[in-house]
C-alpha cells in the first residue's frame, strides 16, 4: 500500500495526496457527473451541441439554486420538505399582492421576500422550540403551504392560476433580474445560471471560511458538543431555514417573471430533487458533512439526465427511475469514499 517513500516525514507522506482527494465530499459526484456526461454523449447525438449545453445548464440551475441552501441545511443536520412548495408560495405571494394591492411589481417582490422569510423562520423556530424532528415539522409546513397555495389562489383569483401581471409597472425590469437570458454564439444562457453560480460561491465561502460555516458543520456533526463550547446552534439552524426561504424567493420570482402567471399546484415533489442533488453531491443524511459545490455537481447531474433523456428521444417517464438509481449509487459511493478517507493508517 505504501510502496517507495522518499519523504522526510514518514508518518505524513504516503497516500497524503490521494487521501486528501478522497476526503473531498464532491468526489463521488464529480465521478458520477463524468459518467453521466460520457453516457449521454454516446446515447444522444444532439447532447454534445452547444445549444444543448445552455438547456442543460438552465435545467441544472433551477434545481441548483435550491440545492445550495438545502445542502447547507443538511450539513447543519436538518431537512426541509417544504422547500418545493415554498417556491410556489413565494411566486404566488408576489403575483397576487402586486395584482390586488398595487400597480408596481416591485412592491409584490418585496412583500414576497418578507412572507417567504417568515415561512423559513417559522420552520426554524418551530424546530428549535419544539425539538421535534425537522422531518415532521417541515412535512407539516409542506402540507399547509400546499393547501394554502391552492385555497388562497382560488379564493382571490377564482381559478387555480394567478392573473397576468405582464402589463404592470416594473415588470420588464424585474424580468431582467429574475428571468432574462442572453446569447453567446449559439448558446442561450438564462440569468438563473448566474444566480446559481453566485449562490454556490457565496455558500462555499460561508461554509469554509467563516465562523457561521464552522457552526453549520458543528451543529450537524454534534449539536451537543457545539452547544457546550458556546456555538449558537439554535440561531444557526433558524438562519439555515431562512437561507432556504431566501433561495425559494429567488426561484419563485424566476417562476413568476418567466411565465407571467403562476399555477398554484406547482412545486410539489421538487423538495426531493433538491435533497437528491445535495445527497448526490456528498452531503451526509445525518449531517456534519458535505459541500455547496457538491450540490451544484448534483444539480448538474440532474440537468444532464433530465435533458439527456429528451435528446436521446427516450420516453421521459424513465427519468425518475434514472434519478433513483443515481441516488442509490451516489450514496453508496459516498459511504465507501468516506470510509476510505477516515480509516486510520
Amino acid at each position, binding site marked *: 500500500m505504501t510502496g517507495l517513500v522518499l519523504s522526510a516525514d514518514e508518518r505524513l507522506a504516503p497516500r497524503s495526496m490521494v487521501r486528501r482527494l478522497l476526503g473531498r465530499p464532491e468526489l463521488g459526484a464529480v465521478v458520477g457527473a463524468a459518467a453521466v456526461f460520457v453516457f449521454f454523449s454516446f446515447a444522444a447525438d444532439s447532447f454534445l451541441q452547444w445549444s444543448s449545453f445552455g438547456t442543460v445548464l438552465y435545467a441544472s440551475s433551477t434545481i441548483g439554486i435550491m440545492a445550495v441552501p438545502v445542502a447547507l441545511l443538511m450539513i447543519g443536520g436538518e431537512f426541509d420538505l417544504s422547500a418545493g412548495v415554498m417556491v410556489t408560495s413565494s411566486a404566488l405571494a408576489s403575483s397576487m399582492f402586486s395584482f390586488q394591492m398595487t400597480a408596481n411589481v416591485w412592491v409584490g417582490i418585496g412583500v414576497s421576500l418578507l412572507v417567504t422569510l417568515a415561512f423559513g423562520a417559522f420552520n426554524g423556530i418551530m424546530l428549535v422550540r419544539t425539538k421535534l424532528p425537522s422531518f415532521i415539522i417541515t412535512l407539516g409546513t409542506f402540507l399547509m403551504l400546499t393547501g394554502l397555495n391552492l385555497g388562497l389562489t382560488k379564493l382571490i383569483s377564482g381559478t387555480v392560476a394567478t392573473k397576468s401581471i405582464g402589463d404592470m409597472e416594473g415588470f420588464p425590469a424585474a424580468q431582467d433580474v429574475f428571468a432574462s437570458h442572453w446569447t453567446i454564439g449559439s448558446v442561450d444562457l438564462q440569468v438563473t445560471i448566474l444566480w446559481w453560480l453566485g449562490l454556490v460561491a457565496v455558500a462555499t465561502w460561508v461554509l469554509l471560511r*467563516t465562523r457561521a460555516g464552522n457552526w453549520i458543520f458543528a451543529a450537524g456533526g454534534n449539536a451537543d458538543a457545539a452547544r457546550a*463550547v*458556546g456555538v449558537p446552534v439554535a440561531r444557526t439552524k433558524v438562519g439555515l431555514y431562512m437561507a432556504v426561504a431566501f433561495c425559494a424567493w429567488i426561484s419563485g420570482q424566476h417562476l413568476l417573471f418567466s411565465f407571467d402567471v403562476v399555477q398554484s399546484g406547482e412545486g410539489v415533489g421538487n423538495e426531493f430533487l433538491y435533497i437528491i442533488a445535495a445527497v448526490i453531491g456528498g452531503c451526509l443524511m445525518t449531517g456534519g458533512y458535505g459541500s455547496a459545490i457538491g450540490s451544484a455537481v448534483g444539480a448538474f447531474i440532474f440537468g444532464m439526465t433530465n435533458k439527456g433523456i429528451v435528446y436521446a428521444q427516450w420516453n421521459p417517464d424513465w427519468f425518475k427511475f434514472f434519478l433513483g438509481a443515481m441516488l442509490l449509487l451516489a450514496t453508496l459511493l459516498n459511504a465507501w469514499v468516506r470510509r476510505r478517507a477516515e480509516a486510520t493508517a
Partner: protein
Amino acid sequence: MTSILDKSAPPLVALTDISKSYGNVRALRDVSLEVHAGEITCVLGDNGAGKSTLIKIIAGLHPHDSGRYAVAGEQVRHASPRDALDRGIATVYQDLAVVPLMPVWRNFFLGSEPTRGRGPLRRLDVGEMRRTTHAALLRMGIDLRDVDQPIGTLSGGERQCVAIARAVHFGARVLVLDEPTAALGVKQSGMVLKYVAAARDAGLGVVLITHNPHHAYLVGDRFVLLKRGTMSGSHLKRDITLDELTREMAGGSELDELTHELSRTPAADGPAAGDPPAAGAEAATDPETRA
C-alpha cells in the same frame, strides 16, 4: 500540594448546598465543593450518584434549584454554557468533547474562531488556526501528524487531550473534566492524567469527575464523594488514604461484605488488601511515592 493561595483568595468555584430536581426526581441534594487554583478537586461516585447533574450545573447547561454557586467569590447563576465559559469555566465532556467529522483545527477553535478582515470579508484566519492548533498541542506533548484529519480519527485519549489543550489555550481558569478516563485503557488513562496534571501545574483549578478512586487519588487534592444525589463525604488528600477513599466510595461495610464473599481465604493484612472488583490494573501505581 500548592494550596498557598487558599488563605487569601476565595476559591475559583465554590458550591454551597446545591440542589437540583428534574420533575419529582431529586437528582442532587445539598452538595458543596471548592475548587482552588493549582488544585484538583475530584468528584467521586457510582453510576447514578449525581455526578452528571453536578457537572451540568457547574458547566451552565442546567441552572441549580437552590444553594449558592460562587465564582471567585461572586455569586452567579449561569443561563448557558457560554456564561460559564465567559467566567473561565471550561467543561470537557466524555462523549461530547468534539465533532468527529470536523478537522482537528476546526474543532480546536470551535465557538471561539479567530477572524481577520472586516464586513463581508471577515473570514476565518485559517493559517493562524492551523499553526496555533499544532503549537498548542505540541506544548501539551501531543505531536499530531496532520491537524487537517477529522478528529474522529484520533484515539479516545488523544481527543480528550485535544479538548484539554483547547481549554488551556483559551485561558480557562477552571477545567471541568467529565469521566476523562472512563472509556480508556491503562496507557491512555495515564496519558490523560498527565495532561490533567499539566493543566493543574499551569495554575488552573480542575474538577475531575470519575468513578475510579485510583485515578482520583493519583492526582487529586480534594475529594467529594456523591451517593444517590447526596454528599457522602468531603476530604482533603492529607486526611485520607487511598484505601479509605476506595472503601468509602464503595460503601464501607458493603465492601467488607463483598470482600468477605469473594475471598477464598481470609486476607491476612487488612480488609482492603484484596482488590475491590471495580479496581483495575492501574492500582499498581503506588500513591505513597507521590504524597
